[in-house]
């Protein structure tokens, strides 16, 4: 019987001293990654090491700031294209329920949305059993004063300044995002089953005489629909194009602004403004950015000096510092 066991065990490799090759090795790989020895950038933040950073920031920021400041201050000159804005203050166009009270699909010319506007438009969704086009509170509260600018020259009757209605909205808005509903010859026909917003005087297809600036693609409307971020804002109203390089766009002189007052703001302590401005590469006039850059640049320069002192003192006080640390 003993022999029997022997045979069996040999087959199975049972004896402990036999077959050493099958040993499994569970040693983890000795790679840099697994052993957490990846080469690494180990920044040590001390006065000495960051000194250059502060001086560099100072050196870069101050000129930028000055540049911005100068640009911003130069804006007042009425040269080149002049932009005419209307400004409203204390007007909360960013109120949540106001902001979402619109239907982009309808504005994009979707027929079904035109006739059945989104629920978000409530309570400016339907009027007298007809869908409102454009629906919603934003459209309903559209700014509808008209501003006209006249130059009072030497002559007795003032000459109107030509104000360009087109080109005040973003190109993508006018051409992609806002579209009139398809079908029909006239705009009126396309909007036939809809009604005008409650507050509006005229229906949407009568916003302008020019067909490519009428309906949903009316640029005044598009500009209004881009809701302002802050309660005091301005919106582009018209463009005053420069006619020639020789004459300023708006020559010096007395001007006359004719306002057709439709839009009440008193109830909410609002104010209306009209702004004429040119723009530079950095937009409208705003001194803040320039001043901020100059300030931060100076602070950082100053900090650099402070750190330099610290660094100097610290090195002197403990010369053996980097050894005993």
């Amino acid at each position, binding site marked *: 019987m003993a022999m029997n066991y022997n045979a069996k*065990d040999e087959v199975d490799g049972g004896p402990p*001293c036999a077959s050493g090759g*099958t040993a499994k090795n569970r040693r*983890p790989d000795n790679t840099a990654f697994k052993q957490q020895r990846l080469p690494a950038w180990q920044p040590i933040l001390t006065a000495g*090491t960051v000194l250059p950073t502060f001086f560099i920031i100072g050196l870069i920021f101050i000129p930028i700031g000055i540049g911005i400041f100068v640009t911003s201050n130069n804006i007042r000159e009425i040269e080149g294209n002049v932009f005419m804005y209307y400004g409203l203050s204390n007007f909360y166009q960013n109120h949540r329920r106001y902001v979402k009270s619109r239907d982009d699909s309808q504005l994009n010319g979707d027929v079904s949305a035109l006739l059945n506007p989104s629920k978000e438009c409530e309570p400016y969704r339907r009027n007298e059993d007809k869908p409102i086009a454009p629906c919603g509170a934003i459209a309903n509260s559209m700014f509808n004063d008209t501003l006209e600018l006249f130059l009072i020259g030497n002559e007795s009757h003032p000459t109107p300044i030509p104000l360009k209605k087109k080109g005040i909205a973003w190109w993508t808005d006018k051409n992609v995002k806002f579209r009139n509903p398809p079908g029909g010859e006239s705009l009126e026909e396309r909007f036939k089953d809809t009604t005008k917003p409650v507050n509006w005087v005229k229906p949407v297809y009568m916003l302008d005489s020019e067909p490519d600036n009428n309906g949903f693609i009316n640029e005044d409307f598009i500009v209004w629909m881009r809701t*302002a971020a802050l*309660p005091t804002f301005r919106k582009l109203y018209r463009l005053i194009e420069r006619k020639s390089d020789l004459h300023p766009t708006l020559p010096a002189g007395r001007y006359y602004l004719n306002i057709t007052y439709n839009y009440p703001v008193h109830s909410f302590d609002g104010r209306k403004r009209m702004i004429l401005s040119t723009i530079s590469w950095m937009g409208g006039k705003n001194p803040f950015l320039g001043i901020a850059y100059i300030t931060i640049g100076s602070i950082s320069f100053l900090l650099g000096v402070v750190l330099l002192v610290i660094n100097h003192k610290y090195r002197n006080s403990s010369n053996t510092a980097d*050894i*005993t640390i």
Partner: protein
Amino acid sequence: MTECLQWARYHWQRLMGSTHGEDDERPYSYSSLLACRGAPSRTPKLAAKHRVVIPHLWPFKDEYEKFSGTYVNNRIRTTKYTLLNFVPRNLFEQFHRAANLYFLFLAVLNWVPLVEAFQKEITMLPLVVVLTIIAIKDGLEDYRKYKIDKQINNLVTKVYSRKEKKYIDQCWKDVAVGDFIRLSCNEIIPADMVLLFSTDPDGICHIETSGLDGESNLKQRQVVRGYAEQDSEVDPEKFSSRIECESPNNDLNRFRGYLEHSNKERVGLSKENLLLRGCTVRNTEAVVGIVVYAGHETKAMLNNSGPRYKRSKLERRANTDVLWCVLLLLVMCLTGALGHGIWLGRYENIIFFNIPEPDGHVISPVLAGFYMFWTMIILLQVLIPISLYVSIEIVKLGQIYFIQSDVDFYHEKMDSTIQCRSLNITEDLGQIQYLFSDKTGTLTENKMVFRRCSVAGFDYCHEENAKRLESYQEAVSEDEDSADTPSGSLSNVTKPRTSSCRTVHNGPLGSKSLNHLAGSCLALGSGEGASEVPHSRQAAFSSPIETDVVPDTRLLDKFHQITPQLFAPIDEMIPNPPLDTLYVIDFFIALAICNTVVVSAPNQPRQKIGLSSLSGMPIKSLEEIKNLFQRLSVRRSSSPSLASGKEPSSGIPSAFVSRLSLFSRMKLASPVEEEVSQTSESPQGPSNSACPSETETQTSDADPTDSKVESSPAQPLASDLCYEAESPDEAALVYAARAYQCALRSRTPEQVVVDFAALGPLTFQLLHILPFDSVRKRMSVVVRHPLSNQVVVYTKGADSVIMELLSSPDGASLEKQQMIIREKTQQHLDDYAKRGLRTLCIAKKVMSDAEYTEWLRNHFLAETSIDHREELLLESAMRLENKLTLLGATGIEDRLQEGVPESVEALQKAGIKIWMLTGDKQETAVNIAYACKLLEPDDKLFILDAQSKDACEMLMSTMLKELQKKSPASPERASLREGLHQAPATQDSGLRAGLIITGKTLEFALQESLQRQFLELTACCQAVVCCRATPLQKSEVVKLVRNHLQVMTLAIGDGANDVSMIQVADIGIGISGQEGMQAVMASDFAISQFKHLSKLLLVHGHWCYTRLSNMILYFFYKNVAYVNLLFWYQFFCGFSGTSMTDYWILILFNLLFTSAPPVIYGVLEKDVSAETLMQLPELYKSGQKSEAYLPLTFWITLLDAFYQSLVCFFVPYCTYQGSDIDIFAFGNPLNTAALFIIILHLVIESNSLTWVHMLVIVGSILSYFFFALAFGAMCVTCNPPSNPYWIMQEHMLDPVFYLVCVLTTCVALLPRFIYRVLQGSLFPSPVLRAKHLDRLTPEERTKALKKWAEAGKMGQGTPTYADHSDATEKRTTSGPASVFAMMSASSCPVEQDDLSVLETALDSDCCETKASGMAGPPKG
């Protein structure tokens, strides 16, 4: 709140888990080892704790149905889900997380039209993403389990089928309780079964249990009594008995029951008769058994507890801060609600701003304010970081992956590396304040080396052996490697199934699932066990250091005096042989046979070496035969009388008869062996003739047995024999005996053969073994001595126990002699203990046959009872083990593990208080403590050893006073907490004190009224050693310290007695050593050597803690900073809940664009390199004090977040004020700047940036721009009512956008940057200073490190000396007369004379009380 709910969820989970196995997650409990714990029964008919097993054959069909039909079958299912219930159940479980519930609430809230802030679907997104990620993870894990279950269930085994009247192949899953199963060699046991037949003539079956408990030695199992005698295989058809046994429980070491034959005869069953599922049959051709427990009711499955669930300290801290965030959120929302109400009050009638409801009516400002509150909650929900929990889990997986792949944790010899069994407490490793360590096997190697012995009062100090050990130390690694490599291969006998389980092991996730799967793997047997359990073969085939013992020359001389002549006239007893020689013989025989060692030859399977070799021995001469017959006749006359004396005596239970029959069978077999032993005794014996020449070679040859055995080539060489012992102590003793040519040659249940040098092979009839247990602290064998033919009991046990059981023999001279021996032995024992040796006493007792018979009968009654069996067996053992005669004592050295002193030193430097909890004697423990540098020579040592509670209290108060005197800085200790805070002060002042406390005193100290005082005392001590502590005390100590001091505790141990301690501590670490896997199974981390602990704590603990705490803080910062942008905007939109960012970008910002960098940071951040952390353990203290994440840090972080958000909002605000910018165009620079701020903030906080960081950071930024551009280009009318169409494109062309972003980012980050710079140069933390070291060249580094160390010492140096001199002065004045045995030991441990004086005084005190029957009046 969160914690509470998670706890509830966990418990619910466990409750749910119980549907398919109510016990599969039951944590291992030590109490089950100590006391029998009735497992809840699942059989309705037997609500009691018994189960009845009827054969699963149709003659018993009705009965079977009645009893066993309801037991579960062998199919296992460890999966939680099925295809059908996965979705509901997983969701159900996930929603038990408070955070998930919160987000569910938000999602639901958003469906209420009045408060809706976002689009309904969008708020669902984060929740859905998080739920999906976790569901996928759970699903994959479960699927893996399912696959393994399936594999196991479909394994094939041979089950008896009545139809075919033979054993047929069946799947494991179809095996039922009551089935007969036939297994061949090397097959895995499919279910727990009672062994009914073994092809082995002695009815033995060897099993390997490594898959179950990691113990690699073979265990013997025995066929049920009464079946062993049958020559033929047990026939299931004829089996008509029934088995009654206890209900399923998870105690691997216990099985109680009986087998009742049809004639009501009962046979006791014990664990010796039980084959456990998951074990492998070895060295036995075939076995047959009947299944008693199947499937989830098997002990292996019941022992399979799931992964451990713990909350780390850091997470608890984070949870409270989440609550702060909730509070902040509520405040912000209230502000919003109030603001909106007031704002609307002004414009109530302006329909521009107060847009009427669809039905035309206008809501009042108050109501609007109320609605706004909820809208705000939805809008600002991101403040509560949903991604935090997911990120933490991912980060921890990453951390565990790196811990597990650290090559430094790899232990070559055992081919094992660290196992992280607990996945969510890695960061706790960095905050440990108290470390509780076991001694044996944890600090020491648990390689028992025979060092000294004392026989009959003579000390044999084995100097040559000591020298060998010293010289061995240098070469130890190479030697052991070469010795172990080949043997290690055995455990790797490849099985086809192995690979499947191995694959699970790959990858970080794999390890997690493995923990779930432990049970399934176990069931697969040794192959799988090997993948989970790094078991070694060392226990089975010890390294040469343990096996080779160089004999002591003086002792050898004694051996030379032994000749067969001494015993030739033994019957007549005429000339008394020298008494000490007899002692020597008895002593070594006791060493060789008083154990449960299994003998095997490495080149041969374990087999009946004894029998086969005996048969090969020819009987030499007529004379011998004559001799033999003479002896036989003597015997025969005695044995029937023995039998007849018993049989009629009383109404003997039938089981007893069967035992007797076995007994007589042994008797019949014995003459043959007797004959052989006699042959060798005779002068003509071949071995004897070689004797003189051989003794000469002995002195020169370290292994002299070879020369002798060569003469009888049929026998395997004695030196080739391998001994497999349950404890290394035993093996050491057997190897020692072998060195003296008293080699254990074979062991069967009936007999033990010992090759005794001069006497040849002696065959002892093994009458009984009383195994070792921790209550008795001893074991005994009862044998019939071949020479004297007497019944002899050899007992081996702890000296304290044995000494109490001694009795003097009759006769004045003998008595006196015994007294002298006893005294001398006690001296030697004390000496051994002081040298750190483990001591054991060897004693014997001769019994008359009548006495033995009487005892045997009572013992049977105890064995066959089911109830109170333990108690009865204990009583029975007590009856046997008394009136012993002391033979001698042994001293075994347990060497310290490699690197232990260094590790202990480093950990102490790291501010961790180390307690050593051991069951060993005080002297041994103290010496090990010195050896491993737990105590230092000039430490002040307090020994707390009192006999009563009052004495203990007084002792402690005196010690406290003493200590407080030493540290005048702490005169008033009003409260315990204060006292604890003073503790570091005492450390700093350089006073190092150690406290030694004994188990008995510990009992008093742990009582309610003394706890505080005890803790106060220990708080003043650097190291505490608890000796003679029971496992229960160990856990109580840990519990006490943990709960009362509110500190982070870590317990480390290797044996079953450490399990409770490991479970109680915040972190339990198991050492996968030689004492089985129970400690590992209960642990959170399993390492293979103590020295690995220092890297685990100092490096990985530190890293994990700083990484995770910084990441959590960063998450809070990130969310607050970002959400506040929205909040500030509310001031400009009438608190109407408008968001200036598109909802998609808002949601994805947290979920996508800024989620990866912090996770990478949490996994890869490295503030200081591993080398520096190891060299400067002091750096660990920052984690202990939670410096990286203090409440203050949290608030500073929030403050910074507020500042940054203010900057991030108001810089663009001022820039765009009064312009025609629209909402989303205003939000875009805000968002972009916030992204840069948040990511660059992380860069500032990072200490090391690798390419992975760069990749992720750049990837995050690019993904943001890509998304914004793509979304802006394609989304014309999508996402109603409004979308950021073409805004990013416009801005990308606008220089102001860039200018704003750059300015905002710089201004926002400036303060933190400045703070870090100033911190770095003006008041650097130790960690920061250490970071500088990493940049130095190696030479500079070593120099700097030296300086650092000196600076550290300088801080403490002066007071140390002062205090020390003070201390020594104190001692000289108070002197050793100190009643409370309070002493400061300043001398070297080995020759602490003053210490020993005091200790003996104390010990005698202790002994006296013990002798007078415990609890004498306290002395002093």
